[in-house]
């Protein structure tokens, strides 16, 4: 054998060895070569959109090769493929501007979560037991199509309900189109910390049913009424970038800001002046400031925003500093001083968000702040507020407990998409009972959460990194920012993009529906029809202050109860990510825990120490959690972060802590029907010694809080 023959022979045996092993992926030589267009060890960066909140930050994803245990064509094996490694803010994106918050950083764990649902499933055990068996996609789609066909045959198309989060993406448009052509009502949306009240107020005051973009970067003085704009409200990354520029981005000018709230939020900690007010009186303070400004020489021109307030043209006689001091508890001198700053330090801006809007008089407070803002003359001006073009998309009909709001009432088929209302709505709304009574439930969730565990059929979605994604942010930028991006990696499992499942179902019905899209890509790339802004609603009558109504008698329930969106978990939808569970809360350093924040003096009066268990009781029920002595909270308020207390939500969040939303009273803001989640009163009672469940990264809240004191 000469050299040439040897090479030939080697080539033949080598090739046949490779071919012979092709049947089993485990033995494929090919598995050492990535099936993606990627060089081993060399990172690529691909764009995507963060799915964690409605802000819609553009991100770049670091993609590298890795050995992945997966199932391909029905066979388990190891393949080398390109996978996401890390997310960064996209410097070219006007929203994220290269930054990314903690939740965005952790969103990669949505893809790699060990308890992700990896294939379609059909329920085998009792509802809520979490017992499922694996089925094929064909079976799953046939099941769902069959349910819809049954309804169509009975001419009962109206009994399909699609429940989702108010997405900023095109997926809701697809669902809406599907439901419309099927003959059902539009999707119902639910989000605990939705901003419906503010959208309504902005429609009345400015003609934009939309959240504002705040041009902090060019503002010299800002006043925020309860809006946690650096932590959880609206578009925190864009707002933090603007905040950095406001403080140190201009030579010689350092913008200042005042935070009005009764429990210090992450944002309140950065304020130059922190002004606690009585809950539900924020609008009065805004009008007190307006009164002081109107008393000066400034013309009272605030357009329709002013016209929405009773007594505006006559200089707001009911809101003199003295009267406002009486109502809000903020000293008259302080009101005059802040009013002076608002006039002198132009451009100035005022905005409202969070708890003040979650009172029964939330709409009044929002209208009052809007009028103040219009008076400052900075609506649509540099350093003021503006409205992102194309950000006013139709967000669907919000689920509500109010009589006028849609309910799950008579639904026979319920489709759940990225929404967890059983966890995030008050028990008194009886969402669990309503859902349990629905004959057929299908969920597109990637995880078994409190609501999806009720589903009869699970059609798991791809993770956002495996899908086409798109967003049209409502705020955070002066310009329209419609974004879409392709998948950054191949799917790890036998999941399917929900958009494609919906399209397939529409096509397989007995009377197929014609949808304008064929693939998820087409959905993501399509643009919303430019719908004209709906005619601005006029208020029934000019708004005036009405005392906020709280559930629970002040003697029996002496404390205001404030459940707040947690920095890590928002409304609880990211409680299953281990990085966020172990991230110390910046204000308390707590990890993996629930807690009740209590003012130090109140705690001393009630003989409560850090970590003691307390029962927090409202008219609706009781939750038991450890005490966190919290210096930044009014003595008559107790606060709890929302996010823990899931009955089902993977190994990291199931059964951990308690859910403060469960004891909320079903109070609503009457105009919009939105849940007034800050309008519940509670009582607290010591329930026991520390049980070790309050886990903190730092030792104490203060350096030596008990020095020289005995309990």
């Amino acid at each position: 054998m000469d050299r040439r023959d040897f090479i030939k022979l080697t080539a033949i045996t080598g090739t046949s060895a490779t071919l012979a092993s092709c049947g089993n992926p485990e033995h494929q030589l090919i598995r050492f070569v990535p099936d993606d267009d990627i060089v081993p060890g060399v990172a690529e960066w691909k764009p995507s959109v963060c799915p964690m909140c409605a802000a819609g930050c553009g991100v770049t994803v670091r993609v590298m090769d890795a050995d992945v245990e997966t199932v391909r064509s029905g066979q388990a094996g190891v393949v080398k493929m390109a996978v996401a490694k890390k997310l960064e803010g996209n410097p070219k994106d006007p929203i994220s501007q290269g930054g990314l918050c903690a939740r965005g950083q952790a969103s990669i764990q949505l893809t790699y979560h060990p308890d992700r649902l990896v294939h379609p499933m059909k329920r085998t055990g009792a509802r809520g037991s979490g017992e499922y068996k694996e089925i094929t996609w064909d079976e799953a789609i046939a099941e769902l199509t069959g349910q819809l066909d049954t309804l169509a045959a009975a001419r009962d198309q109206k009994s399909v309900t699609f429940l989702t989060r108010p997405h900023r993406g095109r997926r809701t448009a697809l669902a809406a189109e599907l439901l419309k052509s099927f003959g059902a009502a539009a999707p119902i949306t639910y989000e605990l910390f939705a901003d419906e009240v503010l959208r309504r107020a902005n429609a009345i005051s400015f003609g934009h049913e939309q959240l504002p973009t705040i041009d902090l970067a060019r503002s010299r003085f800002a006043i925020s009424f309860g809006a946690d704009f650096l932590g959880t409200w609206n578009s925190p990354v864009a707002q933090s970038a603007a905040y950095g520029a406001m403080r140190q981005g201009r030579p010689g000018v350092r913008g200042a800001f005042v935070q009005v709230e009764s429990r210090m939020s992450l944002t309140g900690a950065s304020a130059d002046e922190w002004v606690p007010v009585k809950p539900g009186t924020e609008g009065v303070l805004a009008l007190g400031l307006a009164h002081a400004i109107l008393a000066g020489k400034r013309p009272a021109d605030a357009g329709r925003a002013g016209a929405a307030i009773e007594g505006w043209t006559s200089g707001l006689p009911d809101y003199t500093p003295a009267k406002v001091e009486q109502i809000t508890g903020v000293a008259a001198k302080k009101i005059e001083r802040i009013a002076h700053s608002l006039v002198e330090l132009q451009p100035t801006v005022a905005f409202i968000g969070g708890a003040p809007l979650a009172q029964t008089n939330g709409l009044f407070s929002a209208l009052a702040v809007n009028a103040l803002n219009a008076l400052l003359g900075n609506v649509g001006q540099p350093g003021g507020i503006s409205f992102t073009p194309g950000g006013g998309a139709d967000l669907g009909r919000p689920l509500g407990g109010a009589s006028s709001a849609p309910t799950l009432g008579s639904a026979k088929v319920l489709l759940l998409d990225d929404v967890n209302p059983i966890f995030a709505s008050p028990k008194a709304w009886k969402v669990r009972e309503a859902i349990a009574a629905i004959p057929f439930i299908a969920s597109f969730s990637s995880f078994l959460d409190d609501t999806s565990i009720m589903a009869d059929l699970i059609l798991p979605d791809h993770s956002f990194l495996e899908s086409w994604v798109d967003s049209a942010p409502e705020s955070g930028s002066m310009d329209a920012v419609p974004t879409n991006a392709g998948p950054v990696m191949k799917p790890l499992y036998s999941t399917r993009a929900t958009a494609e499942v919906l399209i397939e179902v529409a096509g397989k019905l007995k009377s197929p529906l014609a949808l304008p899209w064929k693939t998820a890509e087409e959905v993501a790339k399509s643009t919303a029809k430019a719908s004209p802004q709906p005619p601005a609603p006029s208020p029934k009558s000019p708004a005036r202050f009405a005392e906020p109504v709280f559930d629970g008698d002040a003697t029996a329930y002496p404390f205001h109860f404030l459940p707040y969106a947690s920095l890590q978990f928002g409304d609880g939808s990211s409680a299953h990510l281990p990085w966020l569970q172990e991230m110390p809360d910046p204000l308390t350093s707590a990890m993996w825990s629930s807690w009740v924040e209590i003012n130090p003096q109140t705690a001393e009066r009630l003989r409560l120490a850090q970590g003691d268990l307390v029962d927090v009781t409202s008219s609706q029920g009781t939750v038991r959690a450890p005490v966190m002595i919290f210096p930044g909270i009014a003595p008559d308020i107790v606060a709890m972060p929302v996010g823990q207390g899931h009955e089902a939500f993977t190994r990291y969040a199931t059964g951990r802590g308690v859910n403060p939303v469960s004891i909320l009273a079903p109070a609503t803001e009457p105009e919009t029907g939105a849940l007034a989640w800050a309008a519940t009163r509670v009582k607290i009672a010591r329930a026991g010694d520390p049980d070790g469940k309050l886990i903190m990264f730092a030792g104490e809240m203060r350096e030596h809080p008990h020095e020289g004191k005995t309990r």
Partner: protein
Amino acid sequence: MAHKWGMAVDLDTCTGCGACVTACHAENNIPTVGDEQAARGRAMHWLRVERYWEGDFPDVRLKFRPVMCQQCDAAPCEPVCPTYASHHTAEGLNAQVYNRCIGTRYCANACPYNVRFFDFFNPQWPKPLHLQLNPDVSIREVGVMEKCTFCVQRISAASIDAKAEKRELKDGDIKPACVQSCSARAMVFGDLNDPESEVSRLSRSPRGGKLLEDVGTLPKVTYLARQTQV
């Protein structure tokens, strides 16, 4: 001239949001230890956000300070190490050689900033969470000490890229994970030996100061004090 890496943190723009904390976990393969171990003080955060409450309600204030390894020039952690695992590099970093570390924990005792973390057990990433691991950063096993490296893997990568392109490193070429994630741009990283770099400029600020300056550790992280409105 050799580089001397340093950082400046502007406490006037830092909002305490904790993005840097999670970004650091993502970049550096820092394990989560779970609730039981966290309760025993074994949670690992190379970077933490400290909080300082001042005053009583209603005149209460809260200040944040992100604290990572201060990369001291006179580092107390280095001379106490019997195996030279904790040592000073030519570019001024306090490096930790995991393969040399025998887990005496002397360095953690000596560090006045409490930024060194001991691996009490082998890290665990229930599959497929291991796919998130950064291949550029080694995984630490049980019995070694770990700490902030100023994202030395990013420093090396940028230096190699610059060398391949036959150019000098520019100011801003290197961003550790915490700096990159910071939306408010409160953190700046760069070369302190370059007087024109932004980090040098900020380090000379009259607002600048070092953490526990009086213990004489010569930190390379400068904190710019939060301003108050007049």
